[in-house]
């Protein structure tokens, strides 16, 4: 018998209360975000007068109305809360509206006039690379001398892997309800993965002490990284509206707006050069990882580092060099997403192994096996950490047996040779989930491979 989820009874009977389900008094106002339709440009005109006059509208705010700092970057302060004179992506918030109903807020939005002077926009990673539009200096991790080892290698392959963006699609869109308290106090009921940061950002934007702000996160209808930093936005925006009107204000993004406004998983372009011998043992490997960070830093650098730290997947490579670069583009700032860069880093390595196997006409399983981290030797990663309690070989043996891999591989090969149009595939991949250095407090330094 499973141990039931603590809230399961409430979930299944519709009794769990998410942000939009909280009962609020009749003073409640609905918040709406007016965002940029231009990927990069100067704001030429911003006319809010007609919207302010509409009956039922209680606040129409732009960056000038922010009492504290116009800033909500979680690590680097490069993210305006509301665009000032420049917009840097489609979806960037420019104006906030608080109105008595959703219909009135939508009607008010239609009365707002914004004109842009369009500027050249970088809309994909390859353009960003060509323009060297870096968010921060490149990072390097290396061990040994990859260049020298490449020269000595019997075989060399070069290539690249492109991984795409991904929408979080948490079922509950970004939401926050702010309720005013005494004087400057605000209680924010927020669907955030990081309540203490949400508290700090609200306080900064309002220019008040953190002690004035209480953030309550009862439950979240999914986050998957999408509400790790970007949950702050709806919170900061509704807090501004709440502060301006001294009434409760709720923001619950429509799905379409949420998808336009918020960042995705980071797309990567991973370039590699690998040297190996006749059995597929890798002696040298150079990776250059390029990440599309979007229009602001957000968590891009931590995610980049995690991708670099996962570039080895589960393999010991004596001479390895990983260069990581995160680029600024004119897309919504890409952000945390399950795995936080790890999947992209590992995908690069696993695709290198597959290339080698194809080149040598070997089963990739065998190439994986001979490159695994060792127990007593070859057990130091490219960033100098010792791989402890390594059970890779044991798991490999067990899974090869329990999955009956060899005979299934044979059947797949046979099927494929007989069928022109229908193909089957079987694969055996390594995967490392390594809780490491990006937050010292999370450091645990255990390696566990998981085979799928």
């Amino acid at each position: 018998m499973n141990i039931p989820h603590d809230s399961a009874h409430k979930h299944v009977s519709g009794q769990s209360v998410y942000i939009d389900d909280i009962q609020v008094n009749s003073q409640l106002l609905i918040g709406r975000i007016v965002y940029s339709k231009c990927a990069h440009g100067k704001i030429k005109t911003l006319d809010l007068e007609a919207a302010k006059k509409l009956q039922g509208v209680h606040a129409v705010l732009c960056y000038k109305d922010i009492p504290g700092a116009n800033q909500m970057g979680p690590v680097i302060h490069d993210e305006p809360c509301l665009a000032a004179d420049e917009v840097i992506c489609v979806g960037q918030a420019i104006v906030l509206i608080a109105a008595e109903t959703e219909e009135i807020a939508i009607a008010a939005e239609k009365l707002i006039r914004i004109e842009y002077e369009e500027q050249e926009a970088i809309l994909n990673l390859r353009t960003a690379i060509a323009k060297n539009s870096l968010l921060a200096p490149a990072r390097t991790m290396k061990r040994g001398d990859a260049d020298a080892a490449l020269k000595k290698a019997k075989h060399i392959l070069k290539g690249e892997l492109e991984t795409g963006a991904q929408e979080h699609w948490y079922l509950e869109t970004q939401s926050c309800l702010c309720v005013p308290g005494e004087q400057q106090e605000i209680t924010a009921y927020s669907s955030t993965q990081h309540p203490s940061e949400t508290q700090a950002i609200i306080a900064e934007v309002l220019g008040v002490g953190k002690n004035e702000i209480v953030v309550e996160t009862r439950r979240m209808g999914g986050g998957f990284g999408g509400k790790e930093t970007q949950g702050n936005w709806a919170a900061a925006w509704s807090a501004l509206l709440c502060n301006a009107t001294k009434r409760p204000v709720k923001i619950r993004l429509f799905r379409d707006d949420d998808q336009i406004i918020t960042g995705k998983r980071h797309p990567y372009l991973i370039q590699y050069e690998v040297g190996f011998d006749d059995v597929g043992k890798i002696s040298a490997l150079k990776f250059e990882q390029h990440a599309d960070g979007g229009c602001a830093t957000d968590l891009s650098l931590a995610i980049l580092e995690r991708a670099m730290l996962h570039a080895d997947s589960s393999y010991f490579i004596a001479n390895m060099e990983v260069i990581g670069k995160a680029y600024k583009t004119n897309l919504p700032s890409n952000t945390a997403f399950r795995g936080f860069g790890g999947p992209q880093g590992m995908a690069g390595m696993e695709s290198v192994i597959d290339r080698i196997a194809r080149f040598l006409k070997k089963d990739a399983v065998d190439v994986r096996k001979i490159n695994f981290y060792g127990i007593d030797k070859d057990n130091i990663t490219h960033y100098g950490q010792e791989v402890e309690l390594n059970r890779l070989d044991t798991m490999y043996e067990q899974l090869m047996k329990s999955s009956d891999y060899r005979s299934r591989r044979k059947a797949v090969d046979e099927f494929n040779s007989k069928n022109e149009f229908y193909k089957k595939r079987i694969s055996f991949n390594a995967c490392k989930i390594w809780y490491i250095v990006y937050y010292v407090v999370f450091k645990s330094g255990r390696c566990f491979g998981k085979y799928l």
Partner: protein
Amino acid sequence: MQQTISFVLDDKIQTLAFNEQLSPTTTVLNYLRNSPVHKGVKEGCAEGDCGACTVAIGELGADGKLHYHAIDSCLVFLPMLNGKQLITVENLMQRGGGEEILHPVQKEMVECNGSQCGYCTPGIVMSIFSLYKTENNPTKEIIEDSLTGNLCRCTGYKPIIEAAAKACVNNGVDFFTKNEKHIIGLLTQIKKDSQSVDIETKKQKYFQPKTKAEALELRDKKPNSILISGATDVALRVTKRHDLLEEIIDLSHIEELKKCTRTDYVIKFGAGMSLEEVKKVSKNELPALNEALTVFGSKQIRTLATFGGNLGSGSPIGDTLPVLMAYNADIKLQSVNEERIVNMNNYVLSYRVTARKPNELITKVIIPKPVAGTIVKFYKVSKRKDLDISTVSAGFSLLIEKNKVSAITLAYGGMAAITKRVAKAEAFLMGNEWTRENVEQAMELIAGDFTPISDARSGAEFRSVAAKNLLLKFWNETHH
């Protein structure tokens, strides 16, 4: 004529009048969420894609019994509930002696760990509930089909499917069964007094005729009004574009349009039949139509969406169009003083423009039973199998006699502004042998008939390659 509508909710008849505060195009989802006791129902997308808003509808059938269906409440306008029972997740749990007693579906969802963040859960529970009421010991395929309209980003579905399998074992018996008599009594009472609905508020008019004759009269007087049948297309104008729909004729309550009749040669489908119903009816005799509807939207969407609505939009990516062309179907169009038959091949004239005159309604879809030996197939290329719009679709039919192609239709959706046949390829194959060489030559001719577009779903090049390869696939599945 009546100005109000009535339905059963929480075991009581609710009668609603419409006004400035309550628009007739209020969705059932928004109506429920505005009530303090029905916040279990959730909005995840407001466009029929996620199922978080799923509720169940109880309908009194001609057999005098209650039939339960799951639907997306975000796409249903309140008046469409007229005469029905609305069941929400809150109604599934009973309270007694200070205790909360879960429905078997809810109980299994708890025990199998079917919820994580819980946001999709009420919708999932309602989909499984309607499965519980209609199927006993459903196969995995049936379970999955009934969950195609529900997204869950947390669980990976396995525990949910397991919960459904464990729950649906009681022949549908539950406390709703005990209460059925009472509900049937209430619904009969609503029906007994019911007339056609004529709602007028300051900004909107909403008509819900009960007979075809009335509908035709209305349409004749108001040829510019907006017709709705299942509203799965039209509702998006309200939920996504926030349009005000000023004048609506709602065809969802006309029983005559929901009938299916047959002769030895043809099957006649009422234009108001739900696509879920059409799917069932077509299972044995029209397998390609059945296949098209298997991958059409989700079960919730098919339960609402109608044949008339799919043809009404005349969209080049409407999934029934290519398959109806392959079956050489006819459409019956009717106005107050005329009725006429238009063949599918002459029905769509240009992008979303059809042969239907403003005062006409689609009343029937007439499909001839294929000549013995004819093979008809439907293919849909989309980014995922379920709940996706076609990137390219195809309806093909083929008859081979004495080793030669003696009849062939190759109709494509998604390749042009209208659903279109490839005349050159058809002409080339007619009278020729059905060989790979000939088919490959015909594939080259397809390119000449189309200049597909690039859009969010795919690039033009992908569309061209897919269209050609579908023909090869057809050959691969039909040659001997």
